């Protein structure tokens, strides 16, 4: 299936050291994956499409079970698009943007991202708890090497913090999975089977403990306040491509885990703990927004808005646990949460790539170091403005669709929390507008490094003459923003696929 292709290409590339071949193959594969994802998406209806189920370790009920449904298909498509954007963005003499042109390092970088693409697609298609866990954990290991190997600043420390935090979370989550698997008479890790049997329905405390274990693991990855502290340093010190993938794809593994595992497999405990999810969601929304307001570095700012955006998702999923609220609103909330995952992936991916270009051109992504960019960097300015507006939820872009559906869907269940969360919208709007205003408008002021006359070097990838985005970078960011725009203008593109799956999730959680 789709997740094997990047691995196969990675294996083929192991003996290759020519940069052009490495980057070309990577981009080609990323493009192929996008096409595959779209083709696979078109055949998704009700239930799972492209299902593959083979026993793997039969004695322990572990199976190799993959499939796509309305929730995973859009996420897989978003994932492949983000990886395509990162591949395009990396088409240059130093793919990680750190000035290191050693071709063996380039190979390592490309292989790591191919591996990341494989496991990311794997997580979203896995229908077996062990398989899900395998992909989930390998993504952490690979991302650790991306940050530790190609990051900046205190990268070793940030990478270690990221690794320990998320790895600990994943092991706690594994305990939860095990407790689910042994709760059925014939031990199994199969997600649809477990969803159908609802194993911990009549075991109150065990169910709650299981949900707590799984919830903590997923909440760390999401990240939910107060377990988010690994996120800002990891994002800030990772290379641009790494930040984009981390924010756009890896965070979604947490929220996707809630929709795929926590809600359908533990409906009773989830309904019982819905209030906790709602409260943590609202606190994440507000604290993420407020802390982001105080940030001076663009990457940190975007990192904290990620906490804010993921908070809405948790709020909506918590609201879906209020059985009294009527199923229509709750389906809307779950649909909105899924759209938000896709939208956040597209928009934040674009924002991190843009912040990466700033850091590469001027050596800093501190907001105050840049102003008046509309003149010297028009392409940057346009894309940044669009991405910022998409992130703050301007109608016509995907962020609006997502946030509107989530808030509308949560309102009947938890009115007070929803109103509080809506305040977060105002704060993020304010902080993005402030960033846009101070960076793009005003007097022209660039860091010295970005003003220096660029050195012309011969070679396939010429250094740019202007500090503005190069063609490949514009294409990368443009692709992501175009997708966001498409969802914003025609939400039905995604919602028609998501709604049936969201309905089944809500049905499962209402049992």
């Amino acid at each position: 299936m789709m997740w094997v292709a990047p691995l196969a290409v990675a294996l083929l590339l192991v003996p290759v050291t020519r940069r052009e071949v490495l980057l070309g193959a990577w981009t080609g594969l990323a493009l192929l994956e996008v096409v595959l994802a779209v083709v696979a998406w078109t055949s998704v209806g009700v239930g799972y499409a492209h299902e593959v189920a083979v026993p793997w370790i039969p004695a322990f009920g572990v199976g190799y079970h993959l499939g796509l449904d309305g929730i995973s298909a859009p996420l897989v498509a978003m994932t492949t698009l983000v990886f395509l954007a990162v591949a395009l963005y990396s088409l240059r003499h130093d793919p990680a943007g750190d000035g290191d042109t050693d071709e063996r390092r380039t190979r390592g970088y490309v292989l790591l991202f191919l591996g990341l693409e494989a496991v990311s697609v794997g997580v979203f298609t896995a229908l077996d708890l062990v398989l899900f866990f395998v992909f989930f954990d390998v993504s952490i290991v690979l991302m650790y090497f991306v940050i530790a190997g190609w990051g900046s600043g205190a990268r070793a420390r940030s990478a270690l913090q990221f690794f320990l935090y998320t790895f600990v979370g994943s092991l706690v989550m594994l305990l939860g999975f095990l407790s689910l698997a042994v709760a059925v008479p014939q031990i199994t890790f199969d997600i649809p089977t477990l969803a159908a049997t609802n194993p911990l329905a009549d075991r109150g405390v065990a169910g709650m403990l299981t949900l707590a274990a799984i919830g903590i693991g997923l909440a760390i990855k999401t990240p939910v306040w107060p377990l988010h502290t690994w996120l800002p340093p990891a994002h800030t010190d990772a290379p641009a491509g790494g930040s984009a993938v981390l924010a756009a794809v890896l965070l979604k593994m947490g929220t996707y885990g809630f929709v795929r595992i926590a809600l359908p497999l533990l409906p009773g405990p989830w309904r019982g703990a819905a209030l906790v999810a709602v409260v943590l969601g609202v606190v994440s929304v507000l604290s993420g927004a407020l802390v982001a307001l105080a940030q001076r570095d663009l990457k940190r700012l975007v990192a904290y808005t990620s906490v804010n955006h993921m908070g809405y998702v948790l709020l909506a999923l918590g609201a879906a646990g209020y059985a009294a609220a009527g199923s229509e609103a709750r389906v809307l909330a779950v649909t909105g949460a899924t759209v938000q995952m896709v939208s956040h992936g597209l928009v934040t991916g674009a924002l991190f790539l843009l912040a990466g270009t700033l850091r590469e051109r001027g050596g800093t992504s501190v907001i105050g170091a840049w102003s008046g960019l509309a003149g010297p960097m028009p392409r940057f300015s346009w894309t940044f403005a669009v991405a910022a507006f998409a992130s703050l939820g301007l109608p016509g872009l995907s962020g609006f669709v997502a946030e509107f559906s989530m808030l509308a869907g949560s309102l009947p269940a938890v009115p007070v929390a929803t109103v509080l969360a809506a305040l977060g919208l105002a704060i993020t709007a304010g902080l993005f507008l402030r960033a846009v205003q101070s960076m793009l408008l005003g007097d022209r002021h660039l860091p010295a490094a970005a003003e220096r006359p660029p050195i012309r070097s011969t070679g396939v990838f010429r250094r740019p003459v202007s500090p503005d985005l190069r063609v490949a970078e514009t294409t990368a960011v443009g692709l992501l923003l175009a997708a966001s725009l498409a969802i914003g203008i025609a939400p039905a593109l995604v919602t028609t696929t998501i709604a049936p799956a969201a309905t089944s999730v809500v049905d499962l959680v209402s049992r």
Partner: protein
Amino acid sequence: MTRDLLALAPEALLALGAVLGLAVGTWLPPGREGAVRGIGVVAALAAGVVAVAAPVAGPAFGGTFAVDGATAAVRVIVAGAVVVTLVLAGDPSALGGTPDRASPTSARVDTAFAVLLQLSAVGAMLLGGATDLLLLASAVLLAGLPLAALAGLARDGRSTEAALKYFLSSALFGLLALAGTTLLLGLAGATAYPALAGLTGPAPAVGIVLVLAGLLMTAGAVPAHFWVPDAVDGTSPVTGAVLTTTAKVGALVALWRLALAVPGVPVPLLLAIVAVGSMSLGNLAAFAQTSLRRLLAYSTVSQVGYLLVPVVVARETALALPALLGYLAAYVVTNLAVFAVLAARPQALEIGDQRGLARRHPGLAVALAVGLLGLVGTPPTVVFAGKLAGFTAALDGGWAWLAGVAVLNSIASLFYYLRWIAPVFSAGDPVLRDPVAPRARAVAVVLSAVSLVGTVAAVVS
């Protein structure tokens, strides 16, 4: 009678290989004894093949030895470990000491290594199949004593200390096991496992505890683990690999058999305490180590703790045996891979010597990362599958708290393994010469690849 002898064919083949190797080795000039290792490899491979083919199944020698799936697994794993370590030992200076062309020695170190290794492997295989206390006690000695001699092969101060430590603890705990056997013989009137089934009360418990002590020493578990760090740190990495694999495999399966043999004695609770102690103390002691051999030694102590988890639940769930055997195989592959990385650069055995390894020897660095992350239990390595199986068995058997402790310990172990991985991938200072032993590197890369794809291979089985 023929049937009984056939049942022991793999052990016999290995013993034959040892005897033949000894005979041939005495005729070869010292230092050029590759043929002895060759004989050993052939004998081990033959033993493995015969074990898989299994001409005879069921009890043999009047019920003192059982040939079943567990025995076959132990035979295959041990034979594989013998082959791997013999290949590792083929590198020059693999067994400690510098090869000095100017002053050749008369010591036939390679012959001694190969022969002792095979004898100890025979002991480990017997341990895995023993269903009689007397056979068990002699197997403990047969598996342990050659290792003591093996530890002293390098003949320098530290290796002598290692050998002495191993020999003393082996003798002490071996005697305890014999004393326990005597006590149980007096109580039950027989030493065969079926005769022990009816024993209950404090006196048999004391006997069982004494026998357990001998097995725990062989496995390197906590109350009897004192030899592990000194023996591994004082010998060459290849010897360290032997000390921490072969005998351990047999001892753990022997523990499993014993736990099932005496339903009236609270062996699981005892083993659970030992397991918790092993993983926790092993991890705590590994934190502060700067010597990689010591770090690995403590890591093997903690691994025994995880390996004991399925043994604890042996009575409650049928998942225990596949979990134990799977984890044993995974542990041996991964542990040998990491020791092979050490053996590839026997001059660099401190954490500080690992800086910049990834730039100089990327293949070795990746093998090391896979091996160490494997020991943590990171998917998709085989130890992950082993741990998963072990924890599942623990939850299924109603020992949820033990699984919880094991998970916490896995998390803690992450810290010291990462302390090793981090410098490997750091920039590092320029080094003029950083030679690598070719066979050890090949073994490390192959084993780490096996550790990665081994989980997939579980589909076939």
